[in-house]
């Protein structure tokens, strides 16, 4: 029946019943009643017009939208009559659905949304591995890139890039932005064309080509006023006037780096052999259509096996360091680009999604219980409707309509909660998750929310609907109006739901507890230096204006000296690598007299750190052996090096490393050796949660003489009692006085640097604790509700017990025992569940076993305490039952 037909039929029915009333009234008037009395009497005789119409309409069969609309209207009317119940239900759902929506929008934006390139599934990140050095994912060198691109048969195109940072002069003051040096093939590989202008030509990636750049949409707008005329003009990039040849579309990026400037990666195919061993490129390949990553891996295996032969090998023994890719100690590695970008954040996000889903399930269980109790108090109405012929189907539909109205309203409010939560908890917080800019409430998220709303509505609405079986309805006929009706089975269902809630809450609590403990352990990791009252910022010297290494060293010396003049500054120094999380810059390193034995490491050092002489004193890194750098280590005096404990232990087991000599990779004079003068305590560089790698400290002042270059990019470190703001103005003033073109970047306290490094575990622990708290609160409220209802139900029984002399204490124990029994069962089930599932989070834990007894015990005690509070209130109420009043009830 179409809605239109239905409308007509509704009018017919109204008219039919009106005619009935009119006829009755007319006859009454004929019998002598007054017209008003007659109309009233006719109406009274007829009965409840609304219900009669309602039940009559039921006979028309299941209809379409109109029937649905009718149920919804009826449900809304019913709910409006119990605003308290409706408000609690909607609020609970809003929290549950809102939290789910917020987390799902993160999962959606980070994991599910495809990368913004055409056919992103074809894109593969190609890196390399050095199994013998323990490097699982390492860049490739330029020779490998050129050879791979030429010889592979699985990829239609391969591009190369590496990201760094440049100083860009624009209309405003110089800005430091992330840049990428990219091969001309990168854009065709990604399949994206510039919004304006063009991509690099191959010619522009050859040595001595005139400098060109592409700008990101974001930088173009923020620093160049969004003027299209910028294309073709020259801008200052790292001191070089560079022609802008194009603007990239909004949101274009590579590997979530936030690249703002694209520069050509200069490669000369003729000097391919000079590129070997310098691993710094990431490759992105586009698989040929129809070729899967797995097929490509198989196809590429022969290339890997014969690379050396194709390459012609090398007869020069000094070329020993050349890492031609092979199957043994230098493999290529292929990863789906999106999977690689998401990385380990994926698991964390799925864990959050699962946790928040549990919260919603608990909310559903609570609401199911509320509806069950409500259904029992509404028995009278239901019985009446059933008596008038409303079928069971109709009543089930009504229950579902009611729960769906609640859940959809909850979802609507939940969207607001999600919007707020997303900004407050995820986006405004440095969450340490990739692709955060892609997170938002998009159409997918809205569909998910709608599905969630309908799903939850059905789940918690079905419980009371299913209780409406034929037996309970027929029983009710006789019991209609009596409120002492106690259905043992209903009570069982309610108790089971409470146990389930408690169990889920306990599982969540254990998970949250484990992650919280992990986070706490992470914050207590010994970083290797004293980070209190320590500040840092980054300076990059443009290559063009600081071509001279001696000038570079001088600049940092100058900045440090002037900073140390500032009252309140104890000392200032500079280093190339910023702990606790810096990329590996491993390099082959010769160890004098080193004899490779099985089980001994390869001659390679994970981290090279260039530092100023007062580095160790400023950072307060203790020397374990030997001495620190000092005034005796001049720019031209014999080169010295300090190593970390890990290196000393690994390469000089059982000996004092001091006095031994090593030779850093890439050194000019291969006869020159650096003497180890000290062993410094390990400093975390590869991540707070990671094993410390081997590290050498080279003196920045000595690098021009012995290595032929000094780093352009240094992190200045200041130990000062000043506040960051007070320090900031001095820093800006001093840097500007030394070189006004240098932007001060990333000025933070070292504590903040560590906070950032722990952003993801903190984010995960924080959210899980919030979810677990909500879950426990919901479960406690659920326990309270069921217990309170049961006390109200048993008021008569309790009254009799008290009349018979039961003490208040006895009654209290009676109710408490009932509640705590449920909590206890819930606790056991929950702990069991936790044992089963915490293995899933084991890769997210640090220093804590997934079965950590302390966490399990603490959660158990905490949960029992909360449950006790939830039980005490109804128990106390039970003791206040007045036997006389209770017996007089009903």
């Amino acid at each position: 029946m179409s809605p239109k037909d239905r409308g007509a039929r509704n009018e017919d029915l109204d008219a039919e019943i009106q005619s009935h009333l009119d006829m009755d009234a007319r006859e009454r008037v004929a019998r002598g009643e007054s017209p008003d009395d007659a109309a009233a009497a006719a109406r009274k005789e007829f009965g409840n017009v609304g219900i009669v119409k309602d039940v009559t309409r039921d006979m028309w069969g299941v209809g379409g939208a109109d029937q649905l609309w009718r149920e919804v209207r009826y449900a809304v009317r019913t709910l409006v009559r119990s605003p308290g119940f409706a408000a609690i239900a909607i609020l609970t759902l809003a929290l549950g659905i809102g939290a789910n929506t917020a987390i799902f929008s993160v999962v959606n934006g980070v994991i599910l949304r495809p990368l913004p390139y055409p056919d992103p599934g074809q894109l593969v990140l190609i890196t390399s591995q050095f199994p013998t050095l323990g490097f699982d994912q390492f860049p490739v060198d330029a020779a490998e890139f050129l050879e791979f691109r030429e010889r592979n048969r699985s990829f239609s195109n391969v591009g190369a890039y590496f990201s760094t940072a440049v100083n860009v002069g624009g209309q405003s003051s110089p800005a430091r932005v992330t840049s990428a040096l990219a091969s001309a093939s990168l854009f065709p590989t990604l399949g994206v064309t510039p919004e304006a202008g063009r991509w690099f030509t191959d010619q522009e990636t050859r040595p001595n080509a005139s400098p060109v750049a592409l700008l990101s949409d974001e930088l173009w707008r923020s620093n160049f006023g969004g003027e299209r005329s910028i294309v073709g003009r020259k801008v200052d990039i790292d001191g070089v006037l560079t022609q802008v040849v194009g603007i990239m579309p909004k949101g274009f990026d590579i590997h979530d780096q936030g690249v703002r400037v694209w520069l050509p990666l200069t490669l000369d195919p003729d000097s391919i052999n000079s590129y070997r061993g310098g691993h710094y490129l990431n490759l992105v390949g586009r698989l040929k259509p129809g070729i899967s990553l797995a097929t490509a891996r198989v196809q590429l295996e022969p290339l890997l096996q014969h690379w050396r032969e194709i390459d012609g090998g090398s007869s020069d023994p000094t070329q020993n360091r050349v890492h031609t890719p092979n199957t043994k100690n230098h493999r290529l590695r292929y990863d789906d680009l999106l999977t690689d970008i998401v990385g380990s954040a994926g698991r964390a996000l799925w864990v959050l999604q699962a946790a928040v889903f549990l919260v919603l399930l608990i909310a559903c269980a609570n609401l199911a219980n509320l509806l069950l109790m409500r259904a029992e108090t509404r028995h009278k109405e239901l019985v009446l409707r059933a008596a008038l012929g409303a079928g069971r189907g109709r009543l089930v539909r009504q229950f579902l309509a009611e729960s769906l109205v609640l859940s959809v309203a909850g979802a609507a409010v939940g969207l607001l909660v999600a919007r707020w939560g997303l900004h407050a908890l995820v986006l405004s917080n440095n969450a340490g998750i990739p692709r955060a800019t892609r997170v938002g409430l998009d159409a997918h998220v809205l569909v998910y929310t709608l599905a969630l709303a309908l799903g939850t509505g059905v789940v918690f609405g079905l419980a009371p609907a299913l209780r409406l079986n034929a037996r309970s309805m027929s029983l009710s006929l006789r019991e209609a109006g009596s409120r002492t009706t106690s259905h043992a089975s209903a009570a069982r269902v309610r108790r089971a739901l409470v146990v389930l809630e408690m169990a889920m809450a306990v599982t969540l609590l254990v998970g949250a507890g484990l992650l919280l403990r992990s986070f706490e352990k992470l914050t207590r990791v010994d970083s290797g230096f004293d980070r209190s009252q320590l500040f840092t910022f980054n300076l990059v010297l443009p290559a063009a204006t600081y071509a001279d290494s001696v000038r570079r060293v001088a600049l940092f010396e100058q900045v440090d000296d002037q900073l140390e003049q500032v009252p309140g500054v104890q000392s200032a120094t500079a280093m190339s690598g910023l702990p606790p999380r810096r990329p590996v810059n491993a390099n082959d390193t010769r160890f004098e007299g080193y004899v490779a034995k099985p089980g001994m490491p390869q001659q390679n050092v994970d981290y090279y750190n260039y530092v100023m002489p007062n580095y160790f004193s400023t950072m307060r890194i203790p020397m374990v052996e030997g001495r620190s750098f000092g005034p005796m280590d001049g720019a031209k005096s014999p080169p010295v090096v300090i190593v970390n404990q890990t290196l000393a232990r690994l390469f000089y087991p059982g000996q004092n490393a001091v006095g031994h000599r090593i030779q850093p990779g890439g050194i000019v004079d291969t006869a020159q050796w650096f003497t180890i003068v000290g062993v410094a305590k390990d400093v975390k560089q590869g991540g707070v949660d990671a094993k410390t790698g081997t590290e050498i400290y080279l003196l920045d002042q000595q690098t021009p003489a012995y290595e032929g270059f000094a780093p352009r990019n240094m992190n200045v470190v200041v130990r000062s009692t000043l506040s960051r703001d007070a320090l900031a103005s001095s820093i800006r003033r001093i840097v500007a006085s030394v070189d006004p073109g240098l932007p001060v970047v990333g000025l933070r306290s070292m504590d903040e640097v560590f906070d950032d490094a722990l952003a993801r575990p903190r984010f995960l622990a924080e959210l899980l604790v919030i979810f677990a708290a909500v879950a426990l609160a919901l479960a406690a409220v659920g326990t309270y509700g069921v217990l309170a209802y049961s006390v109200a139900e048993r008021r008569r029984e309790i009254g009799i017990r008290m009349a018979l002399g039961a003490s208040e204490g006895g009654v209290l124990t009676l109710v408490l025992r009932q509640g705590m029994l449920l909590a206890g069962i819930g606790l056991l089930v929950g702990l069991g569940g936790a044992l089963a599932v915490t293995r899933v989070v084991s890769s997210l834990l640090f220093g804590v076993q997934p079965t950590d007894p302390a966490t399990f015990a603490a959660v158990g005690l905490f949960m029992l305490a909360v449950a006790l509070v939830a039980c005490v209130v109804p128990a106390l109420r039970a003791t206040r039952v007045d036997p006389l009043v209770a017996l007089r009830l009903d």
Partner: protein
Amino acid sequence: MAKRHAPLTRIELLQGTLDLIILQSLRWGNRHGYGLLQIIRTMSHGVLQVDTGSLYPALHRLEKQRWIEADWELSENNQRVRVYRLTPAGRKQLAVERSKWEQFSTAVAEFFAAPPPEEA
């Protein structure tokens, strides 16, 4: 509304037989709902009192089953009324229901008329 509680038991009594009574009443002539209530009361000498809350759902259910049909007509008072009439299918249904009812009432009657069973 005190009256509405009392019919609770009566509805149980009438369930199943209401259809039969409506169909039989329409055999005597087409009628609107109000008229049906009156004729049922009259013909049963006031014993059978059908509740409106049962009548209209029943009429619409029988209509859906195509045992009766309805049309709008003008009453003697020039009022638009919805008048029901029996369809051929309804006629057959009435025969079936009626024979069932007669079997049932005969059985019940015989049951009560029977002499007490002899004790073994």
